[in-house]
């Protein structure tokens, strides 16, 4: 229904474009006056006036309609004698009524439900009809209004510009509000979690096993229960695992990425650059899940076999495999960012160094790299923040056991992996276990935020120095 309406509104308002354009043209010719704007602006003016009010109305209506209908239906059901004790039961009855209406309910239907379903159908009809009538009313009103404006040769260009500016503003507002919404929901759920688990017990606890956390009644936890709970939600193994894997990844990505960046920027000829840069950047375009199964199915087993031939026990899900693959994933970021940074070191500095007799490698080592260092550090930090936020590879290759280990051949786990583990399967939404996922998300968010902030500052400072 709504789609049909949107389609009709769009078609109708677009056709008004041509009408508005030719109309104003003929007005200006007949009355021999100079228009305040090009005819096409009058066309846009009509289009915007005809579509925006109707679409906004439709949006607002669609947001409120279900809520209003639900309230009314539950009330009528109650009046007819339906019994429910809390909102959950009320919701259940409402869902039943809806299902009866749609013909997808196969339980017993008593008279109350039947009556309610009939009035539900009535209301739906009423609402739909009034929606259509109102929308047509709005369109007619706004078309009449805007046509009158056009006849008076208003300043259509300014008005169109203002409306467009408004639209762009609303788009950025939506982006910002979504961000804020996500942050606040993270924050609120985390606060609920921290009202059960002391934040220090969380931050400094050394054991993580949320599957052990059974709580009968979250509002009344005994001291004994808390001792057990506390041990289920210790953050240290996760941050240790995350940093450990990120560290292995950086051991791979920083030297290779940096050196390849240096090669691209300083040594590669135009021809080589043209071919190899896109190839390196393809690495960045491979979906991480592909890296993930590569790590889990190829690299992990390879390390295990290799380990066995040396008499070592290597678990097939190891920090080493996950870190290695993650490092490979990050190489192109480090490489292309440091390539850019090195390229923007002014040629005059290199000339100055050559002129006192330094060789190319001396110049790179002692002048170019130090000059580019803040930018390089920035790009490495950006890579680190990608590494700790990366999920797919570690879920597939690092394992689930929250071992507190520094043996790269052991399996270990990360923050992101645990979030996934907590949230797959059936959830009780208000158990500490579920809420702990939000706390982890918040912690991860803060960590990457800080890293990105520092990294961007470093890169920016560096840019300022040479602009």
């Amino acid at each position, binding site marked *: 229904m709504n789609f049909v309406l949107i389609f009709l509104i769009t078609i109708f308002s677009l056709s008004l474009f041509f009408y508005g354009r030719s109309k104003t043209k003929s007005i200006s010719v007949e009355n021999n006056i100079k228009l305040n704007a090009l005819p096409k602006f009058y066309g846009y003016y009509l289009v915007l006036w005809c579509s925006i009010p109707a679409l906004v109305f439709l949006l607002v209506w669609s947001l409120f309609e279900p809520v209003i209908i639900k309230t009314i239906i539950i009330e009528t059901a109650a009046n007819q004698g339906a019994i429910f004790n809390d909102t959950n039961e009320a919701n259940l009855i409402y869902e039943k009524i809806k299902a009866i209406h749609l013909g997808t309910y196969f339980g017993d239907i008593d008279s109350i439900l039947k009556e309610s379903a009939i009035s539900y159908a009535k209301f739906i009809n009423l609402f739909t009809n009034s929606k259509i009538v109102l929308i047509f009313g709005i369109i007619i009103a706004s078309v009449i209004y805007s046509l009158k404006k056009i006849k008076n040769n208003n300043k259509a260009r300014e008005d169109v510009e203002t409306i467009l500016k408004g639209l762009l503003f609303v788009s950025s507002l939506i982006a910002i509000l979504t961000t804020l919404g996500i942050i606040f929901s993270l924050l609120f759920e985390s606060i609920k979690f921290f009202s059960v688990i002391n934040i220090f017990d969380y931050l400094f606890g050394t054991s993580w096993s949320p599957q052990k956390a059974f709580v009968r009644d979250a509002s009344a936890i005994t001291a004994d229960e808390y001792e057990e709970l506390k041990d289920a939600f210790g953050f240290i193994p996760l941050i240790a695992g995350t940093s450990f894997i990120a560290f292995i990844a950086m051991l791979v990505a920083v030297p290779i990425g940096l050196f390849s960046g240096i090669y691209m920027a300083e040594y590669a*000829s135009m021809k080589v650059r043209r071919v190899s840069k896109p190839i390196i950047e393809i690495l960045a375009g491979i979906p991480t899940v592909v890296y993930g199964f590569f790590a889990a199915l190829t690299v992990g087993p390879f390390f295990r076999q290799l380990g066995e031939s040396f008499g070592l026990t290597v678990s097939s899900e190891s920090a080493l495999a996950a870190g290695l693959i993650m490092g490979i994933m990050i190489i192109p970021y480090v490489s292309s960012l440091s390539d850019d940074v090195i390229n923007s070191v*002014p040629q*005059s*500095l*290199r*000339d*100055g*160094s*050559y*002129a*006192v*007799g*330094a*060789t190319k490698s*001396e110049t790179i080592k*002692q*002048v170019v790299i*130090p*000059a580019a260092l803040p930018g390089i550090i920035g790009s490495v930090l950006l890579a680190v923040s990608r590494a700790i936020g990366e999920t797919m590879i570690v879920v597939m290759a690092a394992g689930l056991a929250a071992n507190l280990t520094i043996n790269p051949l052991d399996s270990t786990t990360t923050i992101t992996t645990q979030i996934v583990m907590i949230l797959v399967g059936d959830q009780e939404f208000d158990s500490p276990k579920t809420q702990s996922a939000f706390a982890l998300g918040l912690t991860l968010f803060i960590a990457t935020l800080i890293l990105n902030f520092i990294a961007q500052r470093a890169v920016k400072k560096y840019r300022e*120095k040479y602009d």
Partner: protein
Amino acid sequence: MSDIKIKSKNLNVYYGDKQALFDVNLDLNEKEVTALIGPSGCGKSTFIRCINRMNDVIDICKVTGNIEIDGIEINDSNLDVVSLRERVGMVFQKPNPFPKSIYDNISYGPKIHGKGETKNELDEIVEKSLKKAALWEEVKDRLNEPGTGLSGGQQQRLCIARAISVNPEVILMDEPCSALDPIATAKIEELIDELKKTYTIVIVTHSMAQAVRVSQKTGFFHLGKIIEVGKTEKIFKNPDNKMTQDYITGRFG
């Protein structure tokens, strides 16, 4: 007459297909200042960059012909450019100190060439170079501050000190004052006058007045060819060539 330090014979330079210098023959005298003048794009920079082989850095640049320093051919692929550049220093149009401390800017060259084994020797080189570049008094208390924090004129003198630090015989200057204000320019000119007692100096300049003030010999380039060369006085008082005459009187350029 002084001795000839640098001698170019039939020097041709190409950037890809484009020829930038045509059969340049030019002699530069020892411990003298030679000024190179001429309109933009006539090849002055290209010429002095041949003297320390800086054109090697540019992939598409090809140099044919001869350049001799003290009678030894330097346009030879077997020549060690590192030791050539130790003997022939260069100062650029825009001051380009390294983003390092003042001290490290100067000690950079000597360290590269393995001079100044001990901290004391290095200190000495730094002090001597800064003194020669007339910068010592201004910076002696802040040697550890970044060289990029100095004023434009100080930065240029820092670059001169950097060139001096490896104890060269020749200093090439490519419009060293074009980014500086008149006061800083006067200081550099004064300095050049002093430096010519020790070094052979080649300076590219856009200012006739500067050429007259600092140089003993002047060469006039036009469209990649050397048009006239001679004693500065003569070039500016009564040049032989009509084109030189037109250029120094500002009729083109």
